[in-house]
């Protein structure tokens, strides 16, 4: 395994030079490597352990676990899809060679994270993934420069809290190895230490998967990163955070560790805290996503909300909740990846990501539309796509635990997700086609095939979820979360819950029936007529054929029906407090302190220097004499 990672890292640099010669060759090689990796993750036997070497007197090691396999597989699905997508998409980019190099590094880093057996190995690969993704983000448009910095800083805040926690653990137990830590933590008498450590470790996950106090980077980073890379960011890198969150509550068995801290229906207090954060993320993510006009930022906020779902699910440490959360990782990864790739296709053709500037692309880009449609169905959690199953499991767990507020929030998020995923659908694909896009074509097959493949996987898993549920079952058994309870029951075609079971095949059949009925009705009813609104104004150009009581419209985009799409709803929380502003204020605060220090200590005249020298002497004198 280690050789694989090192080879990937080295080859990423080699690939830079290959790509310098011909970036297309480089990206094809990338895609092939990725495909090989997917094959590879299936061949590694579970439980394989590889020692990397000694660092600081501690052995660093990799371990191939069920969890690692699951997360690696999901990550690779997304990455490989993007890699194929990029073969064509890259010709709209300025730095294709660097993109090829860094995306391979991201792959290596993420795989390393999932393979890591101890916290330091995890940290090292984590930083590799962060570093390389941080260098891809600024390749986008102007704003993306700032996005990279925000991303790096937020990520660093979480990462260094993680590191602090890791070292606190080390100073107490003298080990970084996760199984050992889990054992030690379970027997540790000091509650405050355990709480502090677990939350510090979780901080990295919170920052990375965009959970509430550190969620703000998602909007700016997802929104401004190179379009296809947003798919990796949202579909894959964010899942690194979920993985770390899973470590902090499941690998370190929180039920055992906090056995005396059970707060409410068997959920330990720290988990409860995390669940609260997840719930907050769901609310914020949903509400903010509804407002966005920029389609990428919209889905970025939706990632916040979905990250919240995952955390809520995992945090319950309930068999159904845990599996639901973990399965949601898969669902959201695929859906978000497809959505971002669809957007990347749109941007590739139209060069804008403002919903209000688009419209009617369904006729020009039907395949992209189909992919997007199915992805949002999955994202919103509607059967028969796989997204439903995970949400269903999470609801089940919440209801069973009696966490009705959280459950209500989750339902609210689900309804909100209908609202926000519909906005791009209506604004981008439906409605009128702006005149300037009348020559837009569908993207080439190499770009839409990966999308369709992912959609198909999601679809199949919605109908027959057992192949993906089985590894999750294994994971749950590893972590010992009610191992006797069996959820995926492939023999009976059932996904078992506490209050009833779910037979995806039947549901699928029902849906198909419904769909067929609807289609028949659709063909029976008279068809809508098409009016070419552009016709009368063909010569005059820009303004679309819209008049308001005889006045000519100078700013047609204000009359695009997607402008203020949910204005009524948005007005309800117009003056909401902005967390993002608060964080910026914090950044501004440090900046101002810097200015103050600069102004007082570093800039001034020799007199001031003398003053500080004298003061230093005097203070030390006063302290010491």
């Amino acid at each position, binding site marked *: 395994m280690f050789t694989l990672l090192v080879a990937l890292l080295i080859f990423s640099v080699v690939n830079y030079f290959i790509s310098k010669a011909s970036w297309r060759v480089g990206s094809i090689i990338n895609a092939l490597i990725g495909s090989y990796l997917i094959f590879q993750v299936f061949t590694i036997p579970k439980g394989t352990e590889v020692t990397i070497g000694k660092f600081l007197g501690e052995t660093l090691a990799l371990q191939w676990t069920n969890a690692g396999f699951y997360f690696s597989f999901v990550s690779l699905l997304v990455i490989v899809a993007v890699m194929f997508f990029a073969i064509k998409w890259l010709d709209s980019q300025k730095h294709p060679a660097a993109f090829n190099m860094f995306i391979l590094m991201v792959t290596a880093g993420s795989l390393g994270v999932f393979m890591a057996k101890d916290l330091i190995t995890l940290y090292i690969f984590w930083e590799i993934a962060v570093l390389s993704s941080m260098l891809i983000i600024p390749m986008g448009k102007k704003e993306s420069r700032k996005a990279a910095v925000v991303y790096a800083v937020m990520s660093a805040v979480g990462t260094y809290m993680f590191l602090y926690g890791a070292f606190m653990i080390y100073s107490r137990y003298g080990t970084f190895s996760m199984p050992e830590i889990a054992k030690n933590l379970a027997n540790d008498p000091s509650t405050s230490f355990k709480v502090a450590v677990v939350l510090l470790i979780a901080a990295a996950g919170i920052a990375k998967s965009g959970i509430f106090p550190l969620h703000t980077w998602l909007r700016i980073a997802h929104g401004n990163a190179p379009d296809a890379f947003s798919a990796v960011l949202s579909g894959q890198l964010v899942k690194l955070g979920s993985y770390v969150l899973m470590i902090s509550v499941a690998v370190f068995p929180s039920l055992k560790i906090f056995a005396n801290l059970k707060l409410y229906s068997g959920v330990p207090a720290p988990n409860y805290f995390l669940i609260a954060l997840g719930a907050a993320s769901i609310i914020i993510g949903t509400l903010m996503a509804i407002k966005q006009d920029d389609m990428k930022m919209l889905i970025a906020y939706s990632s916040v909300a979905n990250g919240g779902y995952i955390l809520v699910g995992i945090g319950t440490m309930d068999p159904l909740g845990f599996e639901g959360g973990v399965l949601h990782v898969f669902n959201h990864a695929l859906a978000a990846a497809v959505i971002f790739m669809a957007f990347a296709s749109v941007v590739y053709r139209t060069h804008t990501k403002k919903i209000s500037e688009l419209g009617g692309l369904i006729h020009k880009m039907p395949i992209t539309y189909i992919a997007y449609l199915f992805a949002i169905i999955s994202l919103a959690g509607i059967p028969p796509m796989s997204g439903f199953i995970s949400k269903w499991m999470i609801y089940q767990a919440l209801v069973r635990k009696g966490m009705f507020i959280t459950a209500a929030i989750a339902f609210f998020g689900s309804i909100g997700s209908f609202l926000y995923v519909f906005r791009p659908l209506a604004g981008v694909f439906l409605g009128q086609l702006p005149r300037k896009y009348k020559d837009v074509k569908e993207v080439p097959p190499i770009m839409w095939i990966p999308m369709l493949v992912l959609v198909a996987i999601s679809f199949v898993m919605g109908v027959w979820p057992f192949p993906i549920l089985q590894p999750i079952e294994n994971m749950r058994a590893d972590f010992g979360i009610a191992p006797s309870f069996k959820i995926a029951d492939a023999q009976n075609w059932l996904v078992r819950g506490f209050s009833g079971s779910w037979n995806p095949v039947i549901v699928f059949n029902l849906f198909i029936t419904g769909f067929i009925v609807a289609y028949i009705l659709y063909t029976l009813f008279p068809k809508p007529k098409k009016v070419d609104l552009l016709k009368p104004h063909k010569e005059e150009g820009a303004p679309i054929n819209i008049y308001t009581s005889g006045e000519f419209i100078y700013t047609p985009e204000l009359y695009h029906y997607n402008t203020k799409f949910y204005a009524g709803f948005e007005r309800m929380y117009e003056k909401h407090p902005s967390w993002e502003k608060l964080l910026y204020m914090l950044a501004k605060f440090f900046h101002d302190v810097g200015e103050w220090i600069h102004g007082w200590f570093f*800039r001034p005249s020799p*007199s001031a220097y003398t003053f500080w020298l004298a003061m230093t002497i005097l203070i030390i004198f006063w302290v010491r004499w």
Partner: protein
Amino acid sequence: MVFWISAILIGIGVYGLLTQKNLFKQLISLSIIDTAVNIFIIAVGYVDNGKAPIYSKAVPKFMEGAFVDPLPQALVLTAIVIGVGVLALGASLLVKVKEKHSSIDVENMKGVGE
């Protein structure tokens, strides 16, 4: 007592550095501090009724307490010269500061941004 003189002189020099906005005055304050430190060092080596540490016909023999401590004097010799070097450097810098910023008063200097 000589110690007091040198301490007060150092204080005056520091006061000068603190209050004076004219860079030349600051250089002068530095020079005062230098002198004060030198006086202090010599005072450290002074022995009551000791002679200057030079053998001559009058004092041909070594005797305890006959001479003041020669080592501080040697150090001060070095320190004085070092002080001069630094001050000369400072003065020449000030000539250029005046040329470039058209003033050597901290408050009137032009083009000292940041």
